[in-house]
């Protein structure tokens, strides 16, 4: 189902948490809300679920305005950060709960629950109590519980943040697979940009209650509209065009206006033999697939660079950055 938000505002007491957010999410899209903690992304998600009220603005599922529809009648399933698996019910009963609420007859209910448990590879645990399950298994049950009711909208509230790194990767693939199996319109909240880049159809980056930029993962990473988005999506070097020697030099190789902020991502740094910017390696960290270098230019400016070749600390190298990889914000003076 298509979801649309128009001029959504929300305050808690005197603090405005969401300030005028508008969005359109087409049917079947995996949409991400990405931002640092306190940016209002979870509040936005909870307003979609109806667990908190909207102060101003309009939320519609399809053509239907749902501002005043109570949370239990919205047919949007939420996957919680702490799983929220009921400890007193078995895995089967946890998943069956939503179907029982919807008064689905026993044979169909049994079939649907087992089918979805099969899909999340938990059917052998159906009769177990959730307290005996690991975090990853509980999250699978939570996924099954949300999907089984065939919701109009699936909501994910940082579902992987309580899992360890390896499980997180595994569950990411799991969610991708399930989304291909059940192409339900989904809104996914996270602060992990890697999670967003790998799973999202589109991402909205939020900060301070407003959306900074909406786009595909490629657009957000490579064409960030402002320094905040640029640095939130990945590491980036920024220099003032006016006050920094590198900034001036970088702008000179292009036809960009000579003001504002200019920058590049560390992996865009290439090594050349002459005509580049001369810099000394201060620290070098060998990471196997790449090398992280902390460089210092002759004018004393710090540059982070990721290179394929290893250079030990103390070495002097020449670096250059292709014009097409430069990020330029003429109206910003500082990141």
């Amino acid at each position, binding site marked *: 189902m298509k979801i649309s938000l128009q001029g959504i505002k929300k305050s808690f007491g005197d603090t405005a948490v969401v300030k005028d957010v508008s969005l359109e999410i087409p049917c079947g899209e995996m949409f991400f809300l990405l931002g640092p903690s306190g940016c209002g992304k979870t509040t936005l998600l909870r307003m979609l679920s109806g*667990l908190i009220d909207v102060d101003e603005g309009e939320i519609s599922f399809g053509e239907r305005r749902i501002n005043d529809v109570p949370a*239990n009648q919205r047919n949007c399933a939420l996957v*919680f950060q*702490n799983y929220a698996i009921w400890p*007193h019910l078995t895995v089967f009963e946890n998943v069956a709960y939503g179907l029982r*609420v919807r008064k689905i007859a026993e044979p169909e209910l049994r079939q649907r629950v087992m089918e979805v448990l099969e899909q999340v590879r938990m059917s052998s645990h159906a009769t177990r109590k959730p307290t005996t399950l690991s975090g990853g298994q509980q999250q699978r049950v939570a996924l099954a519980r949300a999907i089984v009711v065939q919701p109009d909208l699936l909501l994910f509230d940082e579902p992987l943040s309580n899992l360890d790194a390896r499980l997180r990767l595994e569950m990411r693939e799991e969610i991708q697979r399930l989304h291909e199996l059940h192409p339900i319109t989904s809104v996914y909240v996270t602060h992990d940009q890697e999670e967003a880049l790998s799973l999202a159809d589109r991402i909205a980056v939020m900060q301070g209650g407003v959306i900074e930029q909406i786009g595909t993962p490629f657009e957000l990473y490579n064409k960030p509209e402002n320094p905040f988005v640029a640095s939130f999506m990945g590491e980036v070097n920024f220099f003032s065009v006016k006050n920094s020697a590198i900034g001036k030099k970088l702008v000179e190789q292009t036809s960009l206006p000579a003001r504002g902020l200019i920058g590049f991502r560390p992996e865009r740094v290439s090594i050349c033999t002459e005509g580049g910017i001369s810099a000394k390696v201060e620290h070098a960290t060998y990471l196997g697939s790449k090398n992280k270098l902390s460089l210092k230019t002759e004018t004393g400016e710090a540059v982070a660079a990721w290179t394929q070749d290893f250079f030990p600390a103390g070495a002097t190298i020449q670096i250059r950055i292709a014009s097409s990889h430069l990020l330029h914000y003429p109206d910003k003076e500082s990141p």
Partner: protein
Amino acid sequence: MIAFLLLGLAAFFGLFLLYPLCLMLGGTFFVEHSVGVNAAGKAITAHVFSLEYYRLVFENPFLQQCMINSLIIAIGTTLGCLILALPLAQLFLKYRFPGKAALGSLILVPLILPPFVGALGLKQLFSRFGSVNLLLEQLGIVNLHHPPDWFGSGGFFGIIVMLILHLYPIMFLSVQAAMANVDPSLKDAARNLGASGWRIFRTVTLPLSMPGIFAGTALVFVSAFTDLGVPLMFEFQTTIPSQIFYFVSQPGSPTGLVLVVLMLLLVGVVFALTRLFGQGDYAMMGRSATTTVEEPLRGFTAILVPVLIGGLILLSAIPHLGVILQSFSGKWFMTVLPEQWTTGAYRDILDFPLTVSSIRNSLLYSSASCVLDIVLGLTIAWLLSRANFFGKSLLDSISMLPLALPGLVLAFAYLSAFSIGPFLSIKWLTPRSDPTLLLVIAYTVHRLPYMVRAACAGFQQTAVTLEEASINLGASRLMTFRKITSPLIAANLAAGIILAFSFAMLDVSNGMILAQEEPRYPMTKAIFALMGRITPNAPSIACAMGVLAMILLGISLYASSRMMGKSMGRLFKV
């Protein structure tokens, strides 16, 4: 919805807590003065603010003696409990010794033994012509013409000993919990800097566990000061609680009111002092991951320590052993042990109209108060932990207020508030005609804090997201409460219910004061009434009732601790 609930609660607390208390306070400060004569020659009177009644009480030498006695009883009991509890807590915290787990639970046994029943047994064993003196006489140590008076001055020491034996587990629980909370790394730091064991205890453990020790001290002090059952059992008249009970039969008299207000004042001061001195804010310090390592005791001490603790437990059970002996005795007069053994007393319980009606009454009062407690406790706990409204902290304080309210005070306030004016015509609200409702409410109000606490703990353990997940999947609020919330907090509720029920069954003060006619007596008052009977087997029947009461309380406390699955200490905190 919330406004509706709050209104209901306000009405309840207003009528059954604030109104009686305020009326009682007012009654002691306003004195009726004649301010002139009317045309018919009758005196016109007006109520004038005055401390007259207080002056009268303070200048009465007999009442002065009562105050001194009650203070000595309370201070003596508190000191006794501290002397027992501090080393016990240290032993349990630091060392591992044989039988530790069993002794740890057995040490709580005195808590479940109603102290006034214990007093009954203590008297049987230690009175002038009790078993101990008779035994000593047979051994040629004591001359029965001048038997030693173990209780001293008419039962005074007996009261203190009985109260210590009953209350030291509360102190033990508070102190142990506080000491266990002291971060072991702080003690390690002191040891690392060269401090010895005793120095560490004095400079680190003791100061850091002060809040818990203060809490235990306040609880024991107040319980000892306000206990009515034990002095009554020893027929010791010169204490404040005994005098308050005596003034029940003179409802118009302001002296009783003044005594109750003074008692309330003292309790208030004690709890205020606890708040003031007992709250070191050490919580801000991050706790290290180290845990206390229990050292095993070796050699002689490994035997001595459990034997000493076992001995103490046995000692505190002696009064109740006396009760059990008496309940099975056919004839027991001037002999060390009963001459005949019989279960007749237990059969007689079923024949005596007083015992039968009292058991029925107790069951009725207690179960009705439980139902009311559940309704109120759940409502308040839900409001406190799940709703947002103005005046939340006020509701919190009011629902916890009964913790600081001795049973005697509330019962007396009810008696004086509902025996006058507009209430006289409402039969079911006047204690003299029918105390049922007031007793039920008095029990309810007294145990409400425990119920609220238990339910709040349940709500807090149940993450809000568990309820949100249910709503999110389409369930209504009611269905969510039925299917998700209540099963999850059921254990806590059950524990609260059992506590409320058992305390109501064994309450002394409310029953003694509010139930005034024999057919309305609860079990506890029936036991007292039986003790006063001249019928030869009345004391045995009373003891049999006491044994019944102990069994009941024991079972319910055990069940509730199993259901709570947590240390019982939490339930006895201020």
